[in-house]
């Protein structure tokens, strides 16, 4: 006789794109009494007997008296106000109505009394506007005495702040997503304002479905009111239902009164479902909207994209000279050139060299650093022709030299360096170390200090591999240099070629096939292919066995006919 109860009455959060006024909830309360249980048991027995083929049809024992006393089922819409017995009596007198809302209730109650009466008996609702919504015992969850098992506890500071922001959606300020044109800062916030904005609050509309679970003769007592379901929604499609819909599971259990009566609560979603044609129409509308938007975007820019000619690799380098540090003198500037080897060509109207501004250093840590933030960009195309197919691809080089110029117009070389264009596209941060040629002896050092001249390289490509170098071994024997500071570059490179299109598509296709086979490893792929093969084979065998018999017989008939014909011939 004991039913199983659903003890999971936490709240459930639903998200919907539909308007919340389409929500309908069916609530059913049923009292669990001994007679009811007994009559149910008897009914089950009788039904089972009848099913076994019992001859006598017994009239089942229905529960006597008013069925509505011990059970009620109701479909409630969103913010639908249903009055309880207590409220009916309360709002009958005009004197007790204080707010305009209550006066409106008074009119509604009078109209209901003139008509055939209200359709609910025990179950009633509190909507968002009622004055009782704030003072429900459910509210007391804010205080930790409900959460903890101490007898006395005081609400925390945060709990106090949060209690005041229930359901009073009209007072709270909604902050716009757009940039506010008016004052951004509130220099004198009121206490209310502070309470509302210092904690996270979603403006929620609430509705409580209650039931008056007293004895049937004494309906209308405030103490017998019991909260059944709470529905909350914010304006953006979130609906919170506490407790959750039963969805076919066991009903919830409510225990009331001093006599500890047990009631069963079932909650169901009774909203009308959208018909499939309407769903299709909605999908089509969305799809049209999106394609329209895509067409608009395409029309802004155009569908084409600049592609290099066939067999050409286009290399695009966006770089910046960031900083130089660790050099001997101040007021540094950098002069750089880009060299393109054979088979490389640059676009005609770009300059392959540049000079930065002169920058006075500042101390950062132990070294002096100069910031340039000099942007440069280089676009080069590589054409592969048959002669150079055997040799390795040579990438362009950036040569630079760092010089210093002071207020007395003394110019000194501070260092030489080079940077090879990266072969891998992406972002590269490269720090190049520099050196400067050194002439041994005091005369050159004195000259450098006092007047400012210093030896320079005639051919800057000597920094890496001199242009005039032909041979196998590069020897720099006898060349003296001194290490100076370093220069930092940030490079972003991109490469574009027509052959990459197919490679990318191929890579994507391979990835897709691998994913479909369900494994990233080769082994996984092979075993899953084998499994699939076995399954297919089994299916084919079964299909062969299940071939319709007449087909086989017809073929055999054909054979007989053929053989008979042959015989006749």
């Amino acid at each position, binding site marked *: 006789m004991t039913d199983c109860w659903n003890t999971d009455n936490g709240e459930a959060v639903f998200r919907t794109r539909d308007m919340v006024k389409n929500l309908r909830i069916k609530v059913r309360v049923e009292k669990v009494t001994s007679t009811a249980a007994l009559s149910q048991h008897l009914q089950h027995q009788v039904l089972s007997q009848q099913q076994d083929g019992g001859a006598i049809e017994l009239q089942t024992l229905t529960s006597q008296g008013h069925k509505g006393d011990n059970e009620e089922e109701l479909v409630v819409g969103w913010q639908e106000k249903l009055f309880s017995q207590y409220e009916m009596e309360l709002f009958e007198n005009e004197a007790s109505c204080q707010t305009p809302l209550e006066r409106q209730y008074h009119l509604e109650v009078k109209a209901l009394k003139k008509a055939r009466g209200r359709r609910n008996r025990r179950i009633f609702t509190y909507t968002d506007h009622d004055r009782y919504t704030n003072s429900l015992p459910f509210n007391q969850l804010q205080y930790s005495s409900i959460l903890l098992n101490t007898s006395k506890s005081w609400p925390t500071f945060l709990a106090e702040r949060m209690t005041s922001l229930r359901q009073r959606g009209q007072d709270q300020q909604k902050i716009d997503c757009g940039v506010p044109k008016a004052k951004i800062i509130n220099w004198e916030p009121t206490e209310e304002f502070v309470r509302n904005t210092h904690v996270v609050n979603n403006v929620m509309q609430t509705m409580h479905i209650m039931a008056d679970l007293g004895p049937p003769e004494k309906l209308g007592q405030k103490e017998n009111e019991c909260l059944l379901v709470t529905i909350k929604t914010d304006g953006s499609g979130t609906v919170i239902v506490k407790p959750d819909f039963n969805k076919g599971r066991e009903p919830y259990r409510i225990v009331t009164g001093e006599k500890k009566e047990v009631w069963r609560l079932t909650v169901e979603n009774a909203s009308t479902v959208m018909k499939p044609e309407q769903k299709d129409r909605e999908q089509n509308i969305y799809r049209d909207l999106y394609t329209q938007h895509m067409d608009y*975007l*395409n029309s*802004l*820019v*155009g*569908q*084409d*994209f*600049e*592609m290099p000619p066939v067999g050409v690799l*286009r290399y*695009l380098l*966006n*770089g*910046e000279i*960031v*900083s130089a540090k660790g050099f001997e003198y101040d*007021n540094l*500037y950098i002069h750089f050139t880009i060299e393109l080897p054979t088979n490389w060509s640059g676009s005609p109207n770009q*300059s392959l060299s*540049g*000079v*930065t*501004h*002169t*920058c*006075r*250093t*500042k101390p*950062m840590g132990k070294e002096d*650093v*100069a*910031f*340039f*933030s*000099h*942007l*440069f*960009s280089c*676009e080069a195309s590589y054409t592969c022709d048959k002669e150079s197919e055997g040799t390795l691809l040579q990438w362009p080089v950036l040569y630079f030299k760092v010089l210093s110029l002071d*207020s007395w117009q003394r110019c000194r070389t501070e260092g030489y360096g080079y940077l090879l264009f990266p072969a891998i*596209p*992406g*972002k590269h941060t490269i720090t190049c170390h520099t050196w400067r040629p050194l002439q041994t002896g005091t005369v050159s050092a004195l000259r450098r200090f006092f007047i400012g001249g210093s030896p320079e390289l005639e051919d800057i490509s000597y920094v890496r591999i001199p242009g005039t170098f032909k041979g196998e071994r590069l020897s720099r024997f006898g060349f003296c240099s001194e290490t100076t500071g370093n220069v930092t570059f*940030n490079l*972003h*490179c*991109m*490469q*574009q*070629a*027509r*052959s*990459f*299109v197919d490679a*990318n598509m191929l890579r994507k296709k391979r990835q897709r096939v691998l994913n479909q086979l369900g494994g990233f490893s080769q082994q996984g792929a092979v075993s899953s292919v084998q499994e699939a093969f076995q399954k297919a084979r089994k299916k084919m065998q079964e299909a062969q066995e299940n071939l319709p018999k007449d087909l086989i017989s017809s073929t055999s008939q054909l054979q007989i006919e053929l053989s008979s014909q042959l015989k006749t011939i």
Partner: protein
Amino acid sequence: MAELHIIGQIVGASGFPESCLFCKWGVHTGAAWRLLSGLREGQTQVDLPQIGEMAYWSHPIDLHYATKGLQGWPSLHLQVWHQDSFGRSELCGYGYCHVPSSPGHHRISCATWRPLGTWQEQLVQKFIGGGHQLRKPDLIYSGADRYRLNTEAMGTVELELDIILRHFDKYGVNS
């Protein structure tokens, strides 16, 4: 048509001699680029750090570009200004950096510099502020005229940018 999304923030600035800073930023692109949504330029709030010396702005950048070619890749230009207690604004530095071309999360430190005048002007600047500014900050992009400038190194601006590329691989771009 390929699309580029730049989503990120200007985190803050550090290394400047003054502390009450704000930043004016903008994005500069070539002619083939079209801004589909987002604000191309803006100005942060003034931040005065109480603890430490880094000024934090956390200013959002959210841009959506469409392009027909790879030339003219977007670059970011920044101007850091100092607002003193009298309400005057003084230039603290210019910084330039390219928007990264590889997809993913990038942390960028953009170095800044400030134009310098003669030593007399520097002395005056030390006392009453002011100082030279570029007549048009856009002249810098071509790079041809930069060598005329005398500058001094200032601080760095930190940025965090997330780059999302779309349809670039369809046109054979590896980045």
